[in-house]
């Protein structure tokens, strides 16, 4: 066949783009495209004519897992790294299950590498110090006490110019700040503010107070203590 023939090229290209050139015929046609510029040009013309007509279709967002699967197929080396122990849903589920118990700490084995010590969890219960604040806050320390995260189990409603500040305190003596924590999510506490190893750290309890948005101006709790929990090792 003379694929340089314009009429023939045009007719085949029209069928190809319309979608009526099927199966083996289409594959033969596609194989020919590489060597026949006239065919390619005819296809490009028909694509420019017809394919924009698909713009009348209302877009249909694909489900989120489609992109995840595309990534897995293209870049398998990205195979999702295991989440840090405190990001795992199971962890927070377990923690919220415990929130009904009064101040409580325990070790949880949540897929930690073999030999790793389980984290220490402190559940701080609402004190009623502010009637608007309820629920609990979970603070969780790595066994070596060098890393910690805290999170309210439910979003805490605060005035816009107020923030939550987390404190630790010995049996006797002044509380020390562990920094501001988010009222609606996980806060990773800054290692510099942690007391180091939990055993012998002297931590007796943790507390959360309501402070001005920048944190306590005095270095000591100035607002009501709204959550309180004992550390038990």
């Amino acid at each position, binding site marked *: 066949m003379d694929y340089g023939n314009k009429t023939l090229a045009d007719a085949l290209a029209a069928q190809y783009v*319309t*979608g009526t050139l099927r199966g083996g015929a289409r594959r033969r046609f596609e194989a020919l495209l590489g060597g026949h510029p006239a065919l390619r040009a005819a296809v490009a013309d028909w694509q420019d*004519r*017809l394919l924009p007509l698909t713009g009348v279709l209302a877009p249909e*967002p*694909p489900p989120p897992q*489609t992109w995840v*699967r*595309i990534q897995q197929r293209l870049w398998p080396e990205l195979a999702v790294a295991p989440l840090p122990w405190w990001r795992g849903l199971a962890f927070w589920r377990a923690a919220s299950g415990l929130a009904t118990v009064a101040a409580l700490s325990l070790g949880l084995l949540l897929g930690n590498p073999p030999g790793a010590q389980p984290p220490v969890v402190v559940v701080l219960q609402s004190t009623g110090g502010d009637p608007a604040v309820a629920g609990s806050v979970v603070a969780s320390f790595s066994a070596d006490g060098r890393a910690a995260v805290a999170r309210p189990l439910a979003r805490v409603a605060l005035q816009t110019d107020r923030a939550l500040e987390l404190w630790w305190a010995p049996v006797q003596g002044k509380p020390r700040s562990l920094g501001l924590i988010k009222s609606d999510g996980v806060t990773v506490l800054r290692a510099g503010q942690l007391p180091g190893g939990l055993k012998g750290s002297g931590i007796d309890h943790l507390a959360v107070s309501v402070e001005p948005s920048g944190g306590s101006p005095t270095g000591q709790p100035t607002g009501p203590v709204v959550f309180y929990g004992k550390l038990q090792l």
Partner: protein
Amino acid sequence: MMNTAPEDWSARSRELALLLSRAALGDRLAFKRLYDLSSGHLFAVILRIQRDRSLAEDLLQEVYVSAWKAAASFDAQRAQPLTWLTQIARNKAIDSLRRAQAQPRLETVHRAADDDRPDLDQQLVDESPGPAALLERASDARQLGHCMEGLSAQQRQSVALAFFDGLSHAEVAEQLRQPLGTVKSWVRRALAALKGCLERAAQSDRAVGA
């Protein structure tokens, strides 16, 4: 969100062209953005042809896997990315229909005529516009109404069924209960009318632009 106007198609394609050229160099973030901007359209194109949602999702994955691998061969001078992607999506969707046909089909169960329950067919009525309605909309958007006037409703229907729903000539013939040869000539005539009309429209666009 409708994006029927040709200038709109071109504008979206320009943005996609940049992302596609970056994807060709291995930029995964650019590729993700390309996906975000085009996947809704391509999924709609596929679903129109392949109605099985889970198959359609698989096909959409394949489209983007192919697009990533072929990004380097995409020639922005010669083609618009949205056009290129749409062609890939359509080919895969049409191929999937052929594969599905090779498998046994479920027989349609006809209920007894005296059954007074509401007709199941009517309960499951497809809310999406029919192919002829889509063609009409597309024609309106591109002011092609006058090209279509010369065609009979069945001629318009035949090209719309083939183009939007991915039906083969034989399937169109079956659906319209017409001989295959007749349907083939209708499709050919409808395409010729569209072509002439679009070329005239492009010429007048150029005249206006000049």
